[in-house]
């Protein structure tokens, strides 16, 4: 390795975490932070138990239950038996292995990718993993963060390392400013539409450009969160003053003299001038409109001003088949205006859009308006602290007065592991991240949108261009 060669943010973090490199190029990398939840960890802890292994660094590990928890009153425990067993199993495991844990009734409980940043557990330059593909969220802080499977969870618990091959570098630049009514969610959906759902496979994406730099930390998290929907295991944004400001004073943030040392290190992380990327993609911010998905893959997205595509216009047979299947599943006719698609439900929440800024954006549209009579709308804050903050700001009143259900934090209807599910045929405008068949419930139909677009859809009872509701 030539030390003088300009390096990317990813190169710097990767090289700074190499424990060992085998002759065949396989790397052993050190993991700084490990987030654990109830769904992908029971078999990993069981593996440790069977082999008599311990958790190497409980101080670098943080556990929470989020996927299974009901979002209604849970002071009496979880009714559904399998969900309860999974949460109880996590509670037993964290005691047995000495892992820090936020209990379900603790106000710090929430979606694992919301609470990491919220607690200052997520910091620039770190390697962060979790048995969850949306771990890419944490890349917003200039960390290398990616999802792993349960066998790898066990590997990290036991050794604090992972066996990996280096990824390739990809840079996605969004130049210029985003128009009014266009958010981080619209930007990432537009990117996925452009690169396809496999466009980032084998790569770590660095998001750059004026439109990205202008985003709040919340917006950057929304973008990095959906990197995996573009095939990339990790997405990152170079840390800057906004990043440091967000972290400062949070419970796990460095303090005193260590804070100064940390910031100095963090400032060394952004990609060097002249660093090269294996793949480059550029979009123009001013060209991006509010987006909505029409099909069953996140790449099936269009500006809200668009019409449902016709399989006759597909580029090849394979796409034609995929579009036909998607239209049948979604119950849509080619040529229909997207703004004419009537919805039954609205879900506002998830690790993609369950942060305070998301709630504020939706509330700003909802203020003084009512949810359409036929629409069932719910808002699920990403964590107990997000909920508390929203209540402090009076946002809950705006939601409740508009006709939304105000719920307890968790993953909820993003994947329907708890009772929050779509029924077959129900159509939902959702701020979550996946519109796969059956994702939000068997036969459920998902249209991915931003929080502001979800609020607009709730009011009009159909997919709606939020710009029409902006004064």
């Amino acid at each position, binding site marked *: 390795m030539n030390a003088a060669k300009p390096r990317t943010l990813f190169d710097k973090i990767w090289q700074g975490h190499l*424990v*060992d490199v*085998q002759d*065949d190029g*396989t790397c*052993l990398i*050190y993991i700084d932070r490990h987030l654990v939840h109830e769904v*992908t960890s029971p*078999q990993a802890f069981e*593996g440790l138990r069977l082999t008599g*292994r311990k958790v*190497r660094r409980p*101080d*670098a590990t*943080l556990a929470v239950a989020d*996927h*299974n928890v009901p979002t209604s009153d849970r002071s009496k425990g979880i009714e559904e038996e399998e*969900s309860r*067993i999974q949460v109880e*199993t996590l509670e037993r495991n964290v005691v047995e292995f000495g892992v*820090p844990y936020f209990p379900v009734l*603790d106000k710090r409980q929430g979606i694992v990718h919301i609470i990491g940043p919220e607690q200052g557990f997520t910091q620039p*330059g*770190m390697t962060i993993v979790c048995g969850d*593909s949306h771990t890419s969220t944490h890349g917003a802080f200039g960390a290398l963060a*990616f*999802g*792993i*499977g349960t*066998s*790898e969870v066990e*590997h990290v618990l*036991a*050794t*604090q*390392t992972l*066996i990996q*091959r280096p990824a390739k570098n990809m840079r996605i630049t969004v130049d210029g400013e985003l128009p009014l009514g266009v958010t981080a969610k619209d930007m990432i959906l537009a990117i996925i539409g452009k690169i396809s*759902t*496999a466009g980032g*496979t084998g790569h770590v994406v660095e998001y750059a450009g004026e439109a990205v730099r202008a985003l709040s930390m919340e917006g950057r998290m929304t973008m990095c969160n959906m990197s*995996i929907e573009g*095939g990339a*295991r990790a997405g990152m944004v170079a840390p800057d003053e906004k990043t440091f400001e967000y972290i400062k004073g949070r419970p796990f943030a460095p303090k005193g003299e260590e804070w100064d*040392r*940390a910031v100095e*290190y963090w400032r060394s992380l952004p990609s060097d001038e002249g660093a090269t990327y294996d793949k480059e993609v550029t979009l123009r911010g001013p060209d991006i409109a509010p987006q909505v998905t029409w099909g069953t*893959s996140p790449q099936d997205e269009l500006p809200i001003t668009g019409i449902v595509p016709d399989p006759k216009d597909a580029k090849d047979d*394979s*796409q034609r*088949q*995929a579009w036909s299947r998607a239209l049948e599943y979604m119950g849509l006719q080619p040529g229909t205006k997207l703004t004419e698609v009537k919805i039954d439900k609205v879900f506002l929440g998830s690790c993609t859009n369950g942060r305070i800024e998301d709630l504020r954006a939706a509330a700003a549209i909802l203020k003084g308006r009512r949810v359409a009579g036929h629409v069932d709308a719910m808002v699920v804050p990403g964590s107990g602290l997000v909920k508390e903050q929203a209540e402090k700001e009076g946002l809950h009143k705006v939601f409740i007065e508009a006709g939304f259900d105000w719920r307890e934090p968790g993953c909820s209807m993003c*994947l*329907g*592991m708890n009772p929050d599910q779509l029924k*077959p045929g129900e159509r939902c405008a959702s701020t979550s991240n*996946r519109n796969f*068949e059956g*994702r939000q419930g*068997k036969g459920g139909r998902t249209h991915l949108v931003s929080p502001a677009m979800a609020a607009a859809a709730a009011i009009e009872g159909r997919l709606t261009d939020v710009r029409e509701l902006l004064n």
Partner: protein
Amino acid sequence: MDKFQTFTGIAAPFDRDNVDTDLIIPARFLKTIKRTGLGKDLFNAIRYNDDGSEKPDFILNKEPYRKAEILISADNFGCGSSREHAPWALKDFGIKVVIAESFADIFYNNSFKNGILLVKLDRKTIEDLLDDAQMGANARLTVDLENQEIARPNGEKVSFELDPFLKECLLEGLDDIALTMARAPQIDDFEGDDRARRPWLYGDAPAA
């Protein structure tokens, strides 16, 4: 993990791009705390009707594909979530090899950790193998990992690329946690150096 041995098995054609992990195993089946038993719910949504009866048109509900050990698919197989339940479900059903044009990264790693071999081939070759897989009782392929070859029913051989480390892990049935634990001195060294460089990353969690 069992060692991967050369075998001849039924190959099922499943020519579809972007087969996601929610399709392979829907989220409601992730509530198990075990690795086994997921095979019956593999591809649940497209395999069963609402009343639980089988959809007769679905490939794995037809003979001889009920006993398929090889699945042939298209582009970006295994995209979506990190759930290892996806390879667990495939393995529990009896699938030992998935052949596709490309695979999503996390699914790729997860499969090898469970002894499932994933083979990447170009579209043209996949189409040949899909044709072979349409041959019913004769839809049999032989997978030889040692020589990195798949033998078609007509005797023709197709070779494939594979990372040497992954190959060794499969052939030897290696437990990679044990391999890494043997490198504990290097991990100790790294932590020692790193603690001096980034001391703020070491220590107890803050009090509630």
